[in-house]
């Protein structure tokens, strides 16, 4: 059943806000990685921006009127260092995204001191703004170039949307964007209490998701999922036969089950782990179907 934003519980709103924030940031990052034009337009010295969503006691261990930021660490080192705090902060929907340009190379990672914090007074405001609607958002500049950072983030976000829509976008780029959005979406909703028991019966492990030259890893530990850039021995492998298949499945144009039956999608290894991720995927679709 499709839900309206007003019908969601406090926890669900917090998760949806986090999901929207993560998708916005991840897609912007992925667009930056994929688009040379965007890289050229990045301010000298890089961009550092943080989204902060104030909460009203929602989520595990949340205190009344507390707020917390969670670094969205895209580089492996930062992933590892923040892995332990993931369970404790799983329903604290904030993130930082930083982009650096150094000697022509783009590095995406987390940093402690952002140039600007975009503060949302609550989950609903974040959901509305990040869905393209109207809502309250307070930009908090912390260093010079703060508004350039915000401007660049907006450009990167809209570029991500364009890349997904434009016919001339290379399949590889589009597949990469969709895969990043899907996997980070799983990461964002995995702490949902709706999935708690299900996640506990799914074995822990790492799934490699591959298509062409793109590879992501999703590690499931307890009730959380974390996206990683590398893993030595994945317990399962989910692969798409080509970029087009990945695009069709990930954009919902082709049923995953049909793609599996036709061999466009292949699953190897620890099947219950992948099946567990499918359950989270269903939950992700549920969240994305919420009418804002």
């Amino acid at each position, binding site marked *: 059943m499709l839900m309206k934003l007003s019908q969601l519980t406090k926890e669900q709103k917090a998760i949806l806000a986090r999901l929207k924030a993560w998708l916005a940031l991840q897609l912007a990052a992925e667009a930056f990685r994929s688009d040379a034009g965007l890289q050229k337009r990045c301010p000298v010295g890089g961009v550092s921006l943080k989204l902060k969503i104030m909460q009203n006691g929602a989520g595990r261990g949340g205190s009344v009127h507390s707020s917390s930021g969670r670094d969205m660490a895209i580089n492996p080192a930062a992933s590892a260092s923040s892995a332990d705090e993931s369970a404790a902060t799983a329903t604290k929907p904030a993130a930082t995204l930083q982009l650096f340009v150094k000697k022509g190379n783009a590095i995406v990672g987390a940093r402690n001191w952002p140039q600007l914090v975009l503060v949302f007074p609550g989950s609903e405001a974040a959901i509305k703004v990040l869905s393209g609607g109207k809502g309250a958002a307070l930009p908090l500049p912390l260093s010079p170039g703060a508004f350039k950072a915000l401007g660049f983030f907006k450009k990167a976000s809209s570029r991500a949307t364009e890349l997904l829509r434009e016919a001339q976008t290379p399949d590889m780029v589009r597949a990469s964007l969709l895969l990043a959005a899907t996997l980070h979406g799983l990461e964002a909703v995995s702490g949902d209490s709706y999935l708690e028991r299900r996640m506990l019966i799914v074995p822990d492990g790492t799934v490699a998701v591959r298509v062409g030259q793109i590879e992501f890893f999703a590690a499931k530990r307890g009730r959380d999922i974390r996206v990683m850039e590398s893993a030595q*021995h994945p*317990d399962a492998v989910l692969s798409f036969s080509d970029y087009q298949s990945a695009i069709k499945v990930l954009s919902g144009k082709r049923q995953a089950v*049909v793609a*599996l039956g036709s*061999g466009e999608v292949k699953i190897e290894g*620890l099947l219950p782990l992948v099946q567990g991720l499918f359950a989270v995927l269903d939950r992700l679709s549920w969240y994305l179907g919420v009418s804002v």
Partner: protein
Amino acid sequence: MSSGKKFARSREYFERAAKVIPGGIYGSKSPGFLVPGHFPYYLEGAKGSCIVDVDGNQYIDYLCGYGSQIVGYGNPAVDGPALDQARRGDLLNQPHPVMVELAERLVDLVDGMDWAVFVKNGTDATTLATSIARADTGKQIVVAAEGAYHGAANWCSTNVFPVFTSAEQRDVRFFSYNNIAQLEKLFIDNKNNIACVILTPYHHPTYKPQQLPTPEFLKAVEVLCQREGAYFIMDDIRANFRLSMAGSHSYFGAHPDMVTMGKALANGYPISVLLGAEALKKTASSFFITGTYWMSAVPMIAAMATLNEMERLGGPHRLAQLGTLLKNGLESLGEKAGFKARVSGPPAIPFLTFDEDPNLFLNQRFCAAMADRGVFMHPHHNWFISLAHSEEDIERTLSAAREAFEELRGGFSALFMNKIHEQ
């Protein structure tokens, strides 16, 4: 031949199915549970130990309709009387007299059982058994082994949604099969609240090697149940008469209060049964037990004929003989190819896994290679030997396995030398 051509009709049907049937093929028959591209999705017919898919590909079958075939597909000794009854009437207003005959026969045959209730699926039987145990004891909790399959009802299924976990699944507790200490702790933690312990005669979890009960385990279950006023239910749906004509509990020397049987009971005709000890007959009588098709005559006629045919063809002894040939052959071929391939479970219900690969990459590749060679072995679910299998079938299977292990060896280093993500 490419898999696209080899399974063209299977795929065509599946594409159509996905439009009108949730998941295309749901549950354990879903293509994703096998290895897509190497296995058919739709079968058209079968005879003896062989199945034929919709594209005309033939296989020696070791899944046997998930265990339901025990005297062979299309066995005239079963189908003859069953079809004859079908012509004379199957589902009637009142039961056919064969219901009495079958109940009498099963009560005579199965150790320690005094009454029988006929249903359609394993889930019906296990759900009825736990319900009777709960009603009789006035206690709520059901204890089961982790990973055991007792059916698809909400209380025991893997449909783990909050709406069920807070209701039907709330009162089910789990322990590790064979772990007596864990079971004792459950009885301590849930003092006077455990209605029953439901177990399969040996542990056959999906995706894992099978596990036989330790000599002391089943005895300990009995003692604990008796001491704590709980019933012991043996869920023998899967193994059924493959281990013993007196029931698998008899094979392992156990004495449950209720036994569920199904699958091979009627060689594929839809019928399952809940058998119980005298002490539970009054409570069972107080239950309103019914289902539109639960008393249909044809499956009961088929069950009687299946029991006759099993006895004629050598029953569990013959199954064990054939299963041992297969088990020894596979383990030996695996070892020669450099694998730690191990066949677990009773020989009549074997399952091959590779000690070096708990994630089953090798299982999937081995079973895919076997399917490519016309042998249907499930990569994730235990296999079944039937009385229609022959020594020649086993020989052909082992010949295919020799090639499959060789093929596997070619991909072994790529799988396990830190290169898995480079394939």
